[in-house]
């Protein structure tokens, strides 16, 4: 009986950490006046207390509410201790505010949950504020919003725990000292800043998606976290079509994970992947989410990329890919994002739809000097030269691509193509 209880408590704690931690943290951050470190410590205290008390007193009916009230009390304790130590006046003000809020919430437990959406949005926008470096935004979002531990973040981003720790400490200090607000922007700024938040989520996913043999498992977790963050964005900003588009894109891309890498950890080209190894439930969900995005009638680059991914995933075999549609989607994407990667992919899609000559013509409009050393550019030129029967140019371009690549799996895949 005791063992069963222990397992139930462990499962309840895990579920609470996964489902309630962010809500509780976001609420406490607001109530302590934006002091992220204090709020994190108080929430950690609440989970520690839960682990100590739940086995004896039982799992509360509403773990989230229990954690919320407990974290608030622990925040009050911490502020009072700090106040006694330093005699700081600002801390006294905060403690008064906290006591008032704790009383309010005890009086009306049903009000818990109101405003939680806004609190989580505030926290997300603070962690992704453009005044923080992109590395800091990534580290802070993974730590504060996703709830990952520092060593996990370090492994995922191929860096050391002290480096990640330092980034988080610096970012928190900047939030405090530079007066980065704990608020949701409005108007045009909301749109710009939402783009920034989506970029952070997309970068988290990309880190996970560029998998190599040695760290596949950790990277898969990172993709799953990115999908979770994208779901959160959809939940918090349901009227932003691009948030749905981002979620659709991540689902449709992540669904192909099982077919992307072979047993030796080598990347497999899309055309050669075993499509039965794709996650078709995830593909279906991605397509549903994309349909929901399109219904909002605000086109954008994430929706277009998701539509391209969807077009790939509904072809049962590579030969049945609808390249004409994909080429059209890339053309629309290029209007919004004329970056080299989009233009290169469009050229390949056009080559598949209309023949290699048409693709080469598009590649030739790119600045070859500027893109020298860019793997995707050399690989695309090699591929199309090969299709035209120009083996000499193809070999030279494959060599350039291999020499430019820093990823072992990618280099191996390119060597394989060079040999054929």
């Amino acid at each position, binding site marked *: 009986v005791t063992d069963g209880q222990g397992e139930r408590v462990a499962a309840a704690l895990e579920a609470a950490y996964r489902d309630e931690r962010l809500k509780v943290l976001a609420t406490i951050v607001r109530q302590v*006046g934006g002091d992220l470190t204090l709020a994190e410590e108080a929430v950690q205290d609440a989970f520690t207390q839960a682990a100590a008390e739940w086995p004896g007193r039982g799992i509360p009916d509403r773990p989230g509410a229990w954690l919320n009230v407990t974290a608030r009390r622990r925040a009050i304790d911490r502020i009072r201790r700090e106040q006694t130590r330093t005699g700081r006046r600002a801390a006294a003000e905060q403690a008064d505010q906290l006591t008032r809020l704790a009383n309010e919430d005890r009086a009306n437990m049903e009000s818990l949950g109101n405003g939680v959406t806004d609190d989580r949005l505030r926290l997300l926008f603070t962690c992704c*504020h453009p005044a923080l470096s992109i590395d800091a935004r990534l580290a802070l979002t993974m730590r504060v919003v996703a709830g990952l531990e520092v060593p996990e973040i370090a492994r995922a981003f191929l860096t050391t725990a002290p480096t990640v720790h330092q980034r988080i400490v610096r970012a928190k200090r900047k939030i405090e000292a530079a007066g*980065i607000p704990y608020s*949701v922007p*409005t108007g045009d*700024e909301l749109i710009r800043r939402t783009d920034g938040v989506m970029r952070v989520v997309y970068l988290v996913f990309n880190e996970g998606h560029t998998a190599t043999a040695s760290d596949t498992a950790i990277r898969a977790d990172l993709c799953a976290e990115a999908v979770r963050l994208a779901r959160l964005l959809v939940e918090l900003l349901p*009227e932003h079509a691009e948030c749905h588009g981002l979620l659709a894109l991540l689902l449709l891309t992540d669904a192909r994970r099982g077919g992307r890498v072979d047993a030796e950890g080598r990347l497999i080209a899309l055309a050669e992947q075993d499509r039965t190894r794709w996650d078709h439930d995830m593909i279906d969900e991605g397509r549903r989410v994309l349909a929901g995005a399109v219904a909002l009638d605000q086109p954008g680059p994430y929706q277009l990329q998701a539509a391209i991914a969807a077009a790939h995933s509904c072809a049962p075999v590579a030969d049945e890919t609808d390249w004409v549609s994909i080429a059209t989607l890339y053309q629309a994407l290029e209007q919004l994002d004329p970056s080299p990667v989009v233009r290169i992919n469009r050229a390949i899609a056009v080559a598949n739809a209309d023949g290699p000559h048409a693709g080469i013509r598009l590649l030739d409009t790119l600045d070859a000097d500027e893109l020298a050393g860019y793997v995707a550019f050399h690989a695309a030129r090699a591929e199309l030269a090969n299709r035209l029967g120009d083996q000499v140019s193809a070999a030279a371009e494959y060599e350039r691509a291999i020499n430019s690549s820093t990823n072992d799996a990618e280099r191996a895949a390119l060597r394989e193509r060079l040999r054929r």
Partner: protein
Amino acid sequence: MSTDTNTDTHPRRHTMKYMLLLRQEPGTGPAEGTPEFDAEMSNWGALMGELGAAGALIEARGLDEESTATTLRSRGGERVITDGPFAETKESLFSYIVVEVDDLDAAIEWAAKMPNATYGSVEIRPLSVHEQ
């Protein structure tokens, strides 16, 4: 979206003071004597009026050109005085404005209105909260 629930319980009870450091590369921006220059001057004037009317303006001064700057370092009791600014950079500091606003986002909004933001830069530095 409904941001009305908690927006008014603004966590930051104090305003913040920021120094906006305005820089531009010499030779960029409208040239003196052109209609564009006159238009820019009137933009600056209007912006200062706007800052004042919003109660955000603490102080604003233009700086003489960098060639007039003198930098002093005291090392081991020795004074080292050099001609010119602290560091030679492409963009030179030509003015500063101290504003008092709610938070960084508000300071960024003002910085974005500075005419030189389109061809130079505006650095936003919080004034230290510790009294010097």
